[in-house]
């Protein structure tokens, strides 16, 4: 189950985060303001979210194991 969620979740991030920079000219201006600093901020945000999604994936795996252990005991 967890594996079925993990990859779509990553693709969701792939679809949404760059989407923030896309579209109207105002958001493109925003990404280019302050010497394009927000490009770096977005990159760090992607890395952070990616690691969080991976942690959720590990968490679900562990929860499943814990449930099995409880049933056996």
């Amino acid at each position, binding site marked *: 189950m967890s594996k079925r969620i993990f990859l779509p979740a990553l693709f969701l991030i792939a679809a949404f985060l760059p989407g923030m920079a896309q579209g109207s000219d105002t958001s493109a201006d925003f990404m280019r303001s302050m010497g394009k600093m927000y*490009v770096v901020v977005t990159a760090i945000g992607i890395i952070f979210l990616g690691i969080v999604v991976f942690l959720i994936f590990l968490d679900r795996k*562990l929860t499943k194991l814990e449930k099995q252990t409880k049933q056996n005991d």
Partner: protein
Amino acid sequence: MIKKHFWKALAVLILLYTFIAGLLVPLKPGIVEMDPRTVQSGRNISFKVKGYNTHYMNSDIRAWLKMDEDHVLAASPILIQNDRDLKLIFGIPPFLPTTDKTQNFTLIIDSPVDGVHLLPNAVFVSQDSVNLALASLQWPPERITDLHEKAGITFPFRNILAETIRNIYFHVPMWFAMILLFLGAVIYSGRFLWKKNMQDDQRAASMIRTGVLFGILGLLTGAVWAKNTWGAYWSGDIKQNMTAICLLIYLAYFVLRQAYEDPDHRARVSAVYALFAFFAMIPLLFVIPRLTDSLHPGNGGNPALGGEDLDNTMRLVFYPAVFGWFLMGLWIAQLNFRIERLRERRLEEE
């Protein structure tokens, strides 16, 4: 207890350092705008110049348009409007010391506070007719001397890149960490084939899983960076395409693992596949991109990790970032491995 977890604390401390230094060290001053960009020779022309991270107020500023070492034109007068805006007036002679109708000039600005900063191809000057004899009289030999250097710790300013040069501490270490994790998987896969210990197979799988995570993050951060510097999320650059293929090869590793019921058989096939995938990755990432044109530095004749793309100040942040993310990757892989091992034990007990 502390000894056992020491490397995890080290990973966090190193990454903390790279985040703080990578985000807070300022860029060198630079020039972002020059207006107009195309002019006619033989006129006094006033240019509007916009600086970045500059401190023009109350500073002894000098400015030049430079064609080559011997042909330099000084601005006079220079009107300082604020810390970032200048008005430069250049009296451009009617004839240029070149046989071309149009000549490009580099704008050079020097100040004791900001040091020397420049804008390549700042202005294109057109002349109606070529007259080298008159031009040599109108362009007396002049040289730029007594340039200043900005004091303090700074990162290079590069046009188009601007602040995104900091992505070198976040985007590039993803790839380095990915390659190191895949290399770790090769070592454990090899050890499995030699000693037939199931734990080595699980270690390799965990490392590849974490490596693929870093690879996907590298692709996504690269896409956002590319959108704002190269103009598109995906420009079909050779290195982008090859890394996508490389990640697909590694994703197939997990499809392969799903296909085998018998753990011994699965471990043997996937260990051999991990070796194959790593040796397929080397030409994909390090050989093919160098053979053709690429937007990435280090390919198609561009210098790699050198010059103004990665100076010595940046190395002080970049290499710790690579090491820090690699340790972080090992930590994540280890967590993954411990969960996998627990699950295998559960299965054996049942």
